[in-house]
């Protein structure tokens, strides 16, 4: 992977990498991508993709609301809160 690609990828993942961390991860990512390249040996002609472990029909359910009893407990997990609002920095 060229260094610029890693910067783009990190930005897409909302990760800021320090210089040292960047070097370290660059090495680790390269090592894994090289390992992944082993998959190029396989002839995949005619093989459909497996997207799910158990092949099942699509499942649907009624579009109904179900009350959730832990709303207050959920809100209590917010790092910063005013009444029923979660506080975040200003959007400029």
């Amino acid at each position, binding site marked *: 992977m060229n260094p610029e690609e890693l910067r783009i990828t990190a930005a897409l*993942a*909302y990760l800021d*990498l320090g210089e040292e961390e960047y070097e370290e*991860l660059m090495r680790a990512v390269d090592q894994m991508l090289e*390992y992944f390249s082993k998959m190029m040996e396989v002839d995949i002609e005619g093989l459909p993709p*497996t997207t*799910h*472990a158990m092949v099942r029909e699509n499942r649907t359910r009624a579009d109904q609301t179900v009350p959730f009893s832990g709303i207050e407990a959920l809100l209590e997990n917010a*790092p910063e809160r005013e009444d029923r609002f979660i506080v975040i*920095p200003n959007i400029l």
Partner: protein
Amino acid sequence: MSSLSSWIGVLSDPVKTKTYISHVKKVEPEIGAFLEFDPERARQDSLEHGPLHGVPFAVKDILAVKGFSLTCGSRILSGLVSPYTATVVEKLQQAGAVVVGKTNMDEFGMGSSTDTSAYKRTNNPWDTDRVAGGSSGGSAASVAAGMVPFALGSDTGGSVRQPAAFCGVYGLKPTYGVVSRYGLVAYASSLDVVGLCAASVGIAEEVFAFMRGYDERDNTSVEYTASSENLPGAVRRIGVVSGSLGVEPAVEKTYRQTQEALRTLGYEVVPVELTMMEYYAPVYYTIATAEASANLARYTGIRYGYRPEFAENPEELVRKARSEGFGEEVKLRILLGTYVLRSGFQDQYYQRAQRIRTAIRRDFDQAFQKADVILFPVFPTQAFKRGGDGLDAFQQKVADRFTTAANLAGIPALSFPAAVENGLPVGMQLMAPPFGEDLLFQVARKFTDVFSPPQAPHYISLWS
């Protein structure tokens, strides 16, 4: 052999409860299996008169239990208290079993040693200088040290079976979908299953019967139909792979000896050809990191968990929360996953991996024509030491080459203690076609006729 009956009622009786807690408080400081331990906190959520009433059990900190933390071993979820309980935990509570605490794990299930946890180290009860394995290391160690008869874990690529093997206990990875994932924090959704570590094959079988079944809150869950209902009769043929496996001598030796023992027990040991073996780990890591990068996108520091001291604007808040909240192994996997899903690279990596996954499944379909179950090693090494003598992060990933197969194929697998070498346990695993858990229990139980697994030295359970 340890049985569940000796544990029934332990937490229903005040005197036994006291003895139990003091036992755990004595053992736990050397092991470090728990992130939280409090047998009282969720006791009122368990039925008083179920078949498992008063039986203590531990839950990996990736499964929600109301009132307990839910950190996934990550700093980014520090301070999070779960407002609800996972279906699988509720099912056990309805049977009377009591959650005593949350166990340590590799961050978001990403690791083979439990050392990527942001919170603490978990030591192997057989040798506290060694790792307990991972990612469900706390669950396996809590069972091996006699603190609970069973503990829930999650297995995405071997995370129940490998620590079970390192700690000398049983580890079940069920068929994909037979245990509800509602309340399980997602790592790689097409591979994740809830499993358990247990002190004996009997406990594993008994507890699994309470865990499984369709759940309307998990659309990928399925009703369980034991394969013995479709496939009458006992296991006769056990498939094995030949040739050098490239594993430590103790593991190689145990693989051969286990085959011999199974032959003496009357099974027919037949060679099976698994042509895709060398691709399990690369395919697994491509798919798992891709799914992880999507699943972990939800952690922003806004609604719950770790929030940085200061941020100019919401975008900076998210970037800082993620950069400060995730550990190195998690960042690596997010980066890899984001990369293999990027436009222009999908064909080369993610799509290719999904198509090879089909070939792997077909390989197993064919192998199960020849054999009722398949015997595999669990991991190429026994429990390793920390630092230079151990395995580095890359070697640990390559070493997942035996466990990832069952997750990719969606089939059940059971790791069981098969020998003690160099003072440490060696685990082997059996794999079966979907819904074949009962076949795995059948063979593992029979195997105890020739090898009765010892408990970790110094950690004899109070109630066995």
